[in-house]
């Protein structure tokens, strides 16, 4: 068993290598030139451009640059072209925001999805079930940024209920969870909404299937209360299908953070990645995408591990 998990972890290494190579290649294939960030491109002449390129190490052979980038990330010495801050520091500064919004969003979505999904399954075709169907279609077909813009328009601009931007009160740089809470409400809701809808849908189907199983009929037959049947027999069996979905939402949250953080002015990983990509700040993009890749791979490992916990049949000998 432990050999199996060790193998899974080792498999991640070539995967990360492939991801880093792919990102590196995509960045370099994208037209554009980081030296235009550091000078006014309109007035940049060829010699000045060459000097800046050379000061950024962009005139070295690509393999050298690749190795230097990876080594720089590993040692924390890699610096942003634009701000010259170490990219690892930038990542570290941005992580708490993304993690807070992402984790709270997933937690909320999981809770809401399970509750709504199982409630809908017990009354198939009922009002809640039909409402859920509509909500799911909406959540899946309306892009996050539209939902976010609507939320901003209503809650911040129209009703002045919640702040529209930032992670803490304007002008404050101290960390204070209470003061930050109102700033997190909209981003967390917007993050949670599509995930909750998807989870609810999965839960509804899984619970629906489980409800039709013979052991459920047996449980009813031996006189167990509806609530007990649901919790002990149905939900537990349905959970396995749901867990597999939870595992897939890590990349969804990370991808969504790009939009959520940009719209709500949150200083998170998604936002710095977008900025860096637009400005061809290669070191920052490399650092944040590799970090995201590690996160996604780790989330998958954890998901597989949790399978075993929820369903002993899947445990590996």
């Amino acid at each position, binding site marked *: 068993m432990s050999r199996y998990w060790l193998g899974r972890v080792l498999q991640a290494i070539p995967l990360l290598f492939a991801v880093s190579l792919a990102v590196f290649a995509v960045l370099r294939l994208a037209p554009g030139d980081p030296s235009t960030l550091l000078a006014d491109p309109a007035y940049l002449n060829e010699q000045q451009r060459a000097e800046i390129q050379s000061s950024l190490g962009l005139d070295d052979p690509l393999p050298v640059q690749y190795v230097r980038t990876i080594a720089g990330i590993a040692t924390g010495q890699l610096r942003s072209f634009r701000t010259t801050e170490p990219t690892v520091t930038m990542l570290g500064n941005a992580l708490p925001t993304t993690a807070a919004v992402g984790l709270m969003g997933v937690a909320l979505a999981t809770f809401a999805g399970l509750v709504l999904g199982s409630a809908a399954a017990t009354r198939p075709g009922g009002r809640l079930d039909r409402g859920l169907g509509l909500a799911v279609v909406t959540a899946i077909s309306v892009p996050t940024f539209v939902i976010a813009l609507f939320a901003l328009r209503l809650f911040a601009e129209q009703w002045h209920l919640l702040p529209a931007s930032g992670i803490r009160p304007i002008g404050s740089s101290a960390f204070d969870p209470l003061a930050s809470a109102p700033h997190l409400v909209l981003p967390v809701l917007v993050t949670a909404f599509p995930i909750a809808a998807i989870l609810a849908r999965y839960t509804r189907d899984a619970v629906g299937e489980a409800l039709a199983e013979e052991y459920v009929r047996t449980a009813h037959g031996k006189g167990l209360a509806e609530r007990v049947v649901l919790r002990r027999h149905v939900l537990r069996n349905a959970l396995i299908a749901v867990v597999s979905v939870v*595992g897939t939402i890590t990349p969804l949250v*990370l991808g969504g953070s790009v939009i959520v953080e940009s719209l709500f002015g949150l200083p998170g990983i998604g936002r710095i*990645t977008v900025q860096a990509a637009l400005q061809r700040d290669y070191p920052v993009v490399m650092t944040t995408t590799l970090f*995201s890749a590690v996160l996604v791979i780790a989330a998958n490992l954890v998901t597989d591990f949790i399978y075993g916990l929820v369903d002993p049949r899947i445990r590996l000998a």
Partner: protein
Amino acid sequence: MTTRLRATRRQFLGYGAALGGLWIASCVGAAPPGASTSSSGPRRGGQAVIYITHPDTLNPVISPVSTTIYNTPFFYSGLTRPADDYQPQADLAESWTASPDGKVFTFKLRQGVKFHDGQPFTADDVKFTWELISHPDNVTGRQIAGFFSRVVGAADYTAGKATEIAGIKVLDPYTVQVTLTDVYAPFLTISAGQPILPKALWKDVPVKQLAAHPASRRPVGTGPFVLDTWTANESIVMHAYEDYHLGRANLDRIVSLAVADQTTGFGLLKSGELDAMGLYSSVPIDNYEELKNDPNLEARPVPGLANMYAEFNLRNPLFQDVRVRKALSYATDRGALRNDLWRGQAQHINSPIHPAFWAANPNTTTFDNDPAKAADLFAQAGWKRGSDGILEKDGQRLRFKMQTIQRDYDVVLQEQWKKQGVDMQVERMDFGSFWAPLYLQGKTELAGLNLPFGLYLDPDYPLTGYFSSRLNRNKYKNDKIDELIPAATATLDREERRKRYFDFQETLAQDVPHLWLGVPNEIWGIRKGLVIPKKQTGYLTIRAIKDWYREGKS
């Protein structure tokens, strides 16, 4: 999306970067000033929350990019500062004299000025800063060093052949003398206006490490505000410098928010979280009506800093005939662009000199919107309508491509020109794909872009790079233009300079190597209660930061 979820978990990798493309904000430019109507006079106190795009660094000597240029005046001062008419005004220099031949400037410095860290400001700081700008290792500062290239000995210093710039002399702690190789009028505005750094703080920092030095993010200058905190992607917070040599600012505190884009910024303005936005962060034109109709907000358009234009690549035989270029100009309805595309919030000047400048001639000839003349000129040049209505000459159709980074006027031009029998294809590109690989290589046909202008304090700045035959990218060459550009900086007499610039503008207009289409306004949105003096441009508005104030109670 559900099916993708089932399919594979890993395909979402890099999803983020792809979505980033959504967020390329469209930029809108600026318009004319009006009169102030505040009843109560300036009072001291209060704060302003503003949105101007954050810089990458607050070290002005290494960064000639616009975000640095308009973020540093909060913290730094130069020897001179611009008056509303762009005449140089006393700042760290109390006064100056020019030698009769115009090549030697002697600056008398203000005494008793202290940097934010308490160190006294002296002539050594001036020489040090100007040499730092021109230092051989300061590769990102080369464009700023260009403003000092006419100082005697500067070229040798930048080339590493000298240990100092011989032409910059510290005569005593409060007198600096600069000797130039030629008369260069922008020296008093642009060069002498460069922010001065404290020598004591920077003298031991290797020039290659200037950018990474903490003080590049924590500026120490002599400007009206002192930095409190700069939290990346969040805010820059600053407070008024009590000992500011031009008088303490009215506001106690300024918070400059990092805002993702202008649409988000406008939302913040509406929700009351922002007090002002505008400089390089114009209120989107789509929100202009809403801004105007909001009783709590003031809409203030000023002329923007981008002159939208199309540039003919004269390597292309199609464009070598001036009659064709002129005909295309006549085929262009700039009024429609202004009114429909820019909703009236733009102005057309047939010139690359910013309308706020004393050198701009609003009456430069324009060949605008005259279909009959367009048709006539095409005919003179030998182009006749073919069976499908497209102009033809010797079996060749008048068909070309416009590679453009402007995603607004391109299709309007296409439509307008089609009526005249011109078949233009539009290829929209992002800046990175367009600029270095195509435009700088001279590989565009018709280039759609904008001329950034009006940010520097002298009309000379964009001219050499864009219009001299030595540096331009479209192969345009007119000896008179090549003479007029340097001639216009070779006298300190502003009237004489104006004449040369007028001549330059008219000569260029007659050659039509470019089609100037319009300067969209930069629209400031200001929450009532914050009073911001009216200035000709957004940049001058920022330069007046010390005079901003809050009405009534804070």
